[in-house]
């Protein structure tokens, strides 16, 4: 029986759920010191003085350093790695500790190192920093206006860059359009908020530095950090132990990682830094924060002829690893599932006095999907057409794949009509509409929203996104090394770096089937730059379609060698050996067979019969660079109830049909879909990073940053279609971000459907009770004030920034 396709329980779970995981914070090294960072409470200011003398006198304090003190410890600043040809991106120098000026609340200005974390905390309070405040700008559109305060005087503008991509003739489409719809969308700022905050431990042994860190990208981190520290790469090892979720927030090289390395090197003792939750909310990068102006042009019969988007992306105060690139990452799917002959996209990046944005789950694609789906709904209203009919009319048809979009992107495979049909088999729309009508008579406002999405993942064909393509200064192949031990277990080294997805299990299933070994005896190792081959880590739903393919290729090489050994020992031709039910047997002679353990035993302790031209050992590697991205797709339906009196929205039903190619492990897929949808329900209804107009972060704790809990989401109904990708031999696509990408428009559309009889036509996320209530009031002519809880709000003096009394410490970046 093959293991692939089975809902194998997660191999990693027993240790995780019994408290035996090994996380960075669990690491205790002899003589370890603890670092605590002193951060700016100002959003924009000149540092006029720093007095560290009182802190230095504290018990247990080993050292206190400012940016000046460590100026010589770094060979270079924190890098940004996107350099598209012909595009200039304003990129300020970004040092781990700030000298001169601070640019956002939480900007690091000093570090205290002590023999205990508590001593370091106490001493950090005694570092006295004087600031001379400067004008602050938090709203990206205001930041682009003449006369706005400048985040960086030296650039003379808050504009970071512009980037455009187009295909087909949008101007002609616009001139000839029978119908045009336009809309403005705000995709607000969110946080990754993994359950494990960040933590980094650095150790120096003679010349060799080791960094243990809560990172999704140990390989990239070594590459970047060795450069920053001015040391050769062989002198730095980066290890990602168990990592408790990332959601993109750990796809970064952070100041604190560079700092602990510099401190360990300087002090000759291990140094640990652990983030508090409020620090996470303040200084782990944020995501989204885009405003999009979208135009769709169409014929009266519903044929969409053109799509234009003008996108303003709030990048915050610095350029981090991928900051300016992320808003554009959605561009390949900005026409959605639709065959649109002309697409015209333009991006403007903006500095504001806020934490930089970067990749958060979906990274650019949730924003793209949100606006194309909701604009399709708007177009349907304009045409008086059923929105699903409009979609069907414009879907790329099954027989058109591989389909080249107007932008020259090739969608690998798909069946968008089939996916929507499957959704409607699970969700009876006629029944819903009659139920809805009945409920409306009772004053219950129920609505349904749909989202039919395609996303792009499997990062990535190096030629497409590397220096020769989109301009990322990296490559995106993946590697694997497969070793079978003398007694027939397998050890797999992979260049990916999973952090909660369940890849230890799905990879063991793939390798186990190819090798003829029980997946329970396949150990997947990753996340250590001193083990295995070079890899490019885990993000962008790439691990299975790129890393899994590399693994399958390496495992097949091992299988080939095993067959050769088996053939030699059973006196048969290698072509005649087949692997069935875990046995390598001679075709047609089931009595002549060997297990992998027997073959591997012979490979490691060669018997006399083994021909000398077969090398000992049983181990192979593979490097795989995909030729194209993969394009998962699906169709989601969300049902909500809106309490029209209070504005409160409840999600009462959610049906998802996703297609990520053949299922390696359906249970893992469901888990990713559940989490992804929850993430998006969070953005649509609950979560928002809010800065007030002085640049103070209002949402510094989980009291104010409202992550949904199990009580806020319904039981999910999931189903799948399976359309293999021709890009890799497993046919797999990706599923880690699909739910997040698909669900915000479905939830928003459902709320709009519920509110439609009340006259509310549009509302930006998050659809909080007060916003919904005020929109209903305005629609009914009861004139409510401006929309609440927007970026840059002025909270009154009581603005405790919470629904109740969640405390937020000013020195941790909360509201003061």
């Amino acid at each position, binding site marked *: 029986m093959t293991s692939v396709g089975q809902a194998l329980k997660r191999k990693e779970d027993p240790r995780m759920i019994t408290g035996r995981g090994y996380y960075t914070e669990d690491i205790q090294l002899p003589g370890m010191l603890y670092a605590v960072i002193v951060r700016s409470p100002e959003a924009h200011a000149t540092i006029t003085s720093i007095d560290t003398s009182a802190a230095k006198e504290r018990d247990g304090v080993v050292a206190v350093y400012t940016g000046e003190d460590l100026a010589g410890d770094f060979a270079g600043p924190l890098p940004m790695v996107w350099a598209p040809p012909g595009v200039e991106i304003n990129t300020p120098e970004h040092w781990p500790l700030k000298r001169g000026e601070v640019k956002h609340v939480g900007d690091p200005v000093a570090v205290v190192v002590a023999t205990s974390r508590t001593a370091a905390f106490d001493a950090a309070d005694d570092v006295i920093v004087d600031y001379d405040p400067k004008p602050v700008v938090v709203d990206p559109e205001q930041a682009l206006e003449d006369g706005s305060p400048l985040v960086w005087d030296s650039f003379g503008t808050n504009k970071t860059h512009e980037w455009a991509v187009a295909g087909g003739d949008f101007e002609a489409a616009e001139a000839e359009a029978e119908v045009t719809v336009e809309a403005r969308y705000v995709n607000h700022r969110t946080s990754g908020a993994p359950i494990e905050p960040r933590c980094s431990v650095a150790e120096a042994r003679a010349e060799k530095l080791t960094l243990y860190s809560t990172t999704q990208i140990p390989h990239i981190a070594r590459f970047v950090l060795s450069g920053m520290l001015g040391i050769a790469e062989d002198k730095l090892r980066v290890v990602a132990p168990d990592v408790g979720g990332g959601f993109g927030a750990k796809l970064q090289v952070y100041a604190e990682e560079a700092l602990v390395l510099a401190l360990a090197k300087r002090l000759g003792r291990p140094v640990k830094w652990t983030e508090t939750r409020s620090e996470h909310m303040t200084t782990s990068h944020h995501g989204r924060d885009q405003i999009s102006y979208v135009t769709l042009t169409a014929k009266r019969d519903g044929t969409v002829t053109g799509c234009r988007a003008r996108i303003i992306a709030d990048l915050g105060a610095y350029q981090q690893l991928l900051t300016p690139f992320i808003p554009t990452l959605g561009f390949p799917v900005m026409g959605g599932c639709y065959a649109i002959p002309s697409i015209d996209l333009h991006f403007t990046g903006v500095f504001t006095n806020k934490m930089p944005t970067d990749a958060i789950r979906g990274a650019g694609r949730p924003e793209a999907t949100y606006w194309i789906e909701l604009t399709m709904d708007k177009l349907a209203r304009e045409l008086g057409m059923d929105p699903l009919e409009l979609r069907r009319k414009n879907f790329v048809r099954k027989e058109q794949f591989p389909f080249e979009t107007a932008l020259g992107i090739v969608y690998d495979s798909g069946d968008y009509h089939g996916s929507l049909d499957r959704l409607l088999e699970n969700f009876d729309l006629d029944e819903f509409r009659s139920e809805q009508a009945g409920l409306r008579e009772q004053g219950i406002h129920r609505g349904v929203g749909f989202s039919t999405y395609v996303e792009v993942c499997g990062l990535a064909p190096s030629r497409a996104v590397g220096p020769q393509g989109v301009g990322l200064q990296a490559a995106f192949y993946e590697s694997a090394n497969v070793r079978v031990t003398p007694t027939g277990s397998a050890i797999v080294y992979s260049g990916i770096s999973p952090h909660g997805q369940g890849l230890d299990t799905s990879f063991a299933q793939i390798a186990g089937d190819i090798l003829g070994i029980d997946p329970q005896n396949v150990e997947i190792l990753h996340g250590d730059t001193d083990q295995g081959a070079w890899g490019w880590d885990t993000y962008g739903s790439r691990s299975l379609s790129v890393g899994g393919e590399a693994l399958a290729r390496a495992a097949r090489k091992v299988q080939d060698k095993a067959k050769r050994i088996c053939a030699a020992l059973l006196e048969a031709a290698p072509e005649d050996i087949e692997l069935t039910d875990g046995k390598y047997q001679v075709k047609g002679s089931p009595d002549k067979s060997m297990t992998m353990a027997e073959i591997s035993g012979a490979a490691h302790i060669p018997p006399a019969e083994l021909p000398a031209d077969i090398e000992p050992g049983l181990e192979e590697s593979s490097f795989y660079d995909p030729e194209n991205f993969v394009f998962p797709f699906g169709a989601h339906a969300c049902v909500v109830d809106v309490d029209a009196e209070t504005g409160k929205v409840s999600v009462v039903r959610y049906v998802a049909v996703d297609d990520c190619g053949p299922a390696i492990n359906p249970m893992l897929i469901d888990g990713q879909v559940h989490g992804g949808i929850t993430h998006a329900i969070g953005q649509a209804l609950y979560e928002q990073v809010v800065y007030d107009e002085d640049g103070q972060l209002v949402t510094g704790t989980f009291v104010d940053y409202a992550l949904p809990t199990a*009580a806020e989401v319904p039981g999910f109904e999931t189903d799948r279609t399976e359309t293999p990708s021709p890009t890799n031999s497993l046919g797999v696509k990706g599923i880690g971000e699909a739910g997040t990408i698909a669900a915000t428009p479905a939830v928003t559309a459902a709320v709009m459907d519920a509110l439609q009889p009340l006259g509310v036509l549009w509302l930006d996320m998050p659809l909080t009770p*007060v916003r919904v209530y005020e929109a209903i009031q305005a629609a009914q002519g009861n004139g409510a004030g401006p929309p609440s809880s927007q970026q840059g709000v002025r909270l009154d003096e009581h603005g405790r920034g919470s629904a109740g009394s969640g405390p937020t410490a000013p020195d941790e970046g909360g509201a003061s």
Partner: protein
Amino acid sequence: MITAPFDYETPETLDEAVRMLHENGEDAKLLAGGHSLLPLMKLRLAAPTLLVDLRLVPGLHHIQRENGSWRIGALARHADLQDTPELGVASAAAKQIADQQVRNRGTIGGSLAHGDPASDLPAVLVALEGEVSAQGRNGLRTIPAGELFQDYLTTALAHDEVITEVRLPATDGWGYGYEKFTRRAEDWAMVGVCALVKKGADGSCEDVRVGLTNMGSTPLRATAAEQALRGGSLDGDSIASAAEHAAEGTDPPGDLNATPDYKRHLARVLTRRALVAAAQA
């Protein structure tokens, strides 16, 4: 996330606890369930140098009925109230506090002493016209609900006074409802309303109480709404028009999730809903 340094004592008698508080001045704080105090300390918004933990002090855990009133020890947990449905609205409100972990730790004494208008039990105490006993240097005194809450996080308790007991009148013959409006199931109240209705023999409203959570710097009584309903009919229209008065005289602060106007609107809606529930019971 790490508190400033502090000392920790576990007195075994009430007198000892009071003495420790007294001798150490304003920098000493009582510790009950710790679920309001410790978060403030971890965020360094509070930095007491001594914590006087009440956990070994006997006689503070009871919930018992005596002569038409409930006597509840200061250390009774929210979970204990939750598990005593005979308490009526106090039990119903306790059940809606945060999540089970918080309810397993938090105490009624701590909740009232903390004086947070967003907490659920203060409005219940005010609506029920209950009282607390407080032990200080000069013995035991009784503080009626109406005098206990003075301002945001400020009560009539002296810093060296310990709430020992909370007394709530039994509400036989009253119907009740506690309506709490939150963004997420386990959040603090944006607004909460505690309503009690006593029906006369003819079904009219013999008496009524409405307490408001998070509508000002202290828990409040919606007296205008009470007056509008008292003595009148309990039909839907009467309740609805009485509830329209629920926010009169309130000046709630706006916050991230609500404007003052929206809170006043919620108070009216929730008062109506709580009164309907109370009148149905």
